[in-house]
């Protein structure tokens, strides 16, 4: 095959196979920008699966990145559990008041049925439509919140830490229910056409909990979920630190780890030892103010640090580019990947 004729799928799979494709693959993990693209509010945009599909297609036509990303917003999952969502004009939707009011309610908690939730069905519909459009040419990245990281929205972060430290029985019960749900929800997305699942698990990050605690909790859950999914898993720490637990994440069965700007990309790449690929780690929050020069240099530096030998996909470090990041920066990232990311990498 002539290298520059690669489709996005071939490019990504080659990189994940720890080989060098034609150029460095990159994921612009855009969600809310689709609303700008379609000239509607964020709330309206996420109300119809067709909008998300149209937004994703238009953005990929514009920037030429290597995936579709039918992720809506994190609290959509909690809506399936009976929660509410608060929308903003200029930022991501947030979960409303926690659904679990008293921690004792966990004892009788039951997971919702994925197929009974109109909200989840919207995401599945977007995924199916994107799959029809993309065929085998473009990877579709599905998203699931880890059973271990969804509780801050289900019951509040404080109560969650309280049970994690002081009531393991309730904690285990919550994890059990959440794990069943996460597996069903992830597999439903894979069945609808997602190529891989991006498993958001920032609470496992050493930024949030110590590694010893992670080994007893988040790690075991990651391992269990990963073993039961019918597709590859990318563990995403949503800009939390990853380096100290890279070996654990690999052991738990992840194919990809997404790392933060606070981790050194070269160190992360080395620590992965070819067992996992690396996704990351542009600072999305700072990106809003990047000049053309900063954009080009930052992309170039990331490529120089991590791209050699494949096993690297460039992206932001949170898994969602903030609404405030302008078109020029996104275009600048795309241009820089094409300029500096041709294999073999020129140092």
């Amino acid at each position, binding site marked *: 095959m002539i290298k520059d004729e690669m489709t996005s799928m071939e490019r990504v799979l080659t990189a994940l196979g720890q080989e060098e494709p034609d150029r460095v693959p990159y994921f612009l993990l855009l969600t809310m920008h689709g609303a700008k693209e379609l000239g509607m509010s964020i709330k309206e945009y996420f109300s119809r699966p067709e909008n998300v599909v149209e937004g994703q297609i238009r953005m990929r036509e514009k920037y030429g990145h290597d995936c579709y990303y039918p992720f809506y917003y994190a609290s959509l999952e909690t809506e399936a559990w009976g929660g509410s969502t*608060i929308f*903003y004009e*200029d*930022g*991501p939707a*947030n*979960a*409303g008041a926690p659904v679990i009011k008293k921690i004792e309610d966990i004892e009788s908690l039951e997971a919702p049925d994925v197929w009974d939730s109109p909200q989840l069905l919207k995401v599945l519909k977007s995924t199916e439509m994107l799959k029809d459009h993309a065929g085998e040419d473009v990877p579709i990245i599905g998203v699931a919140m880890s059973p271990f990281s969804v509780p*801050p929205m289900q019951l*509040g*972060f*404080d109560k969650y*830490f309280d049970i*994690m*430290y002081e009531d393991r029985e309730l904690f285990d019960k919550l994890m059990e229910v959440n794990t069943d749900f996460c597996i069903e929800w992830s597999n439903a997305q894979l069945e609808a056409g997602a190529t891989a699942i991006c498993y958001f698990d920032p609470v496992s990050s*050493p*930024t*949030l*909990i*110590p590694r010893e*605690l992670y080994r007893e909790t988040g790690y075991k859950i990651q391992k269990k979920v990963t073993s039961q999914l019918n597709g590859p898993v990318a563990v995403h720490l949503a*800009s939390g*630190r990853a380096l100290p637990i890279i070996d654990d994440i690999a052991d738990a069965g992840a194919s990809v780890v997404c790392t933060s*700007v*606070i981790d050194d990309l070269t160190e992360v790449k080395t620590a992965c030892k070819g067992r996992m690929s690396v996704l990351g780690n542009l*600072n*999305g*929050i*700072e990106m*809003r*103010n990047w000049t053309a020069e900063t954009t080009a240099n930052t992309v170039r530096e990331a490529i120089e640090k991590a791209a050699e030998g494949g096993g690297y996909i460039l992206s932001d470090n949170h898994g969602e580019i*903030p*609404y*405030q990041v302008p078109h020029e920066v996104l275009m600048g990232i795309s241009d820089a990947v094409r300029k500096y990311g041709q294999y073999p990498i020129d140092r």
Partner: protein
Amino acid sequence: MENDKRASMDFENALINVDRIAAEDVIKKALHVGEGDVFRVIDTIISPALESIGSKWEAGDIALSQEYMASKITEELTNKMLPIESPQRSSRPSIGITTLKDQHMLGKQILKALISSNGFNLIDYGCMAIENIKEKLKTDNIEVLFVSTLMLNQALTVKEITEFIEQEKIGTKVIVGGAPFLFDEGLWKEVKASAMARTAVEGIHISQRLMGE
């Protein structure tokens, strides 16, 4: 002096290991030795321990969950020694705290626990709308307003508060913190805050400096 230092380190270790009983023992003993002088215990044992925990979190040596549990245990202990309504507190300068419209409360909670563990008089504005905060600023005589946000769009609205304070010549100092400020070093200036802090304890130090304490 040496004893205080050792006690503070014992207290810190108890907190990091989430050992309530050991933590309480250190404080009880210190109160006994110091003849019940609560502020002395705060200054010599509690504050240095919390400060060290804050720097360890910033350096990535301990995780946020440990900082949260530490702040929670300390708050329980100080509230026992120095009840919220205590006149010793209300004579101190007023600090306001809010997340603006951000729904994320954990940062504020940790901060609140630490500020109140330091004996300050604290007013919690929750996640009040900006218009309401403005009204409060006019009437409540707040010397320092702590703003904690996780969402970038909420962080950007701090500017509405700081510009209002400037316009109305209210004089309240605004200290900001939370993830968006940690990830974008220039953001606090962009929203015209008086300062940013990477940890709660740093925030307290800055506020003491700003209030001339």
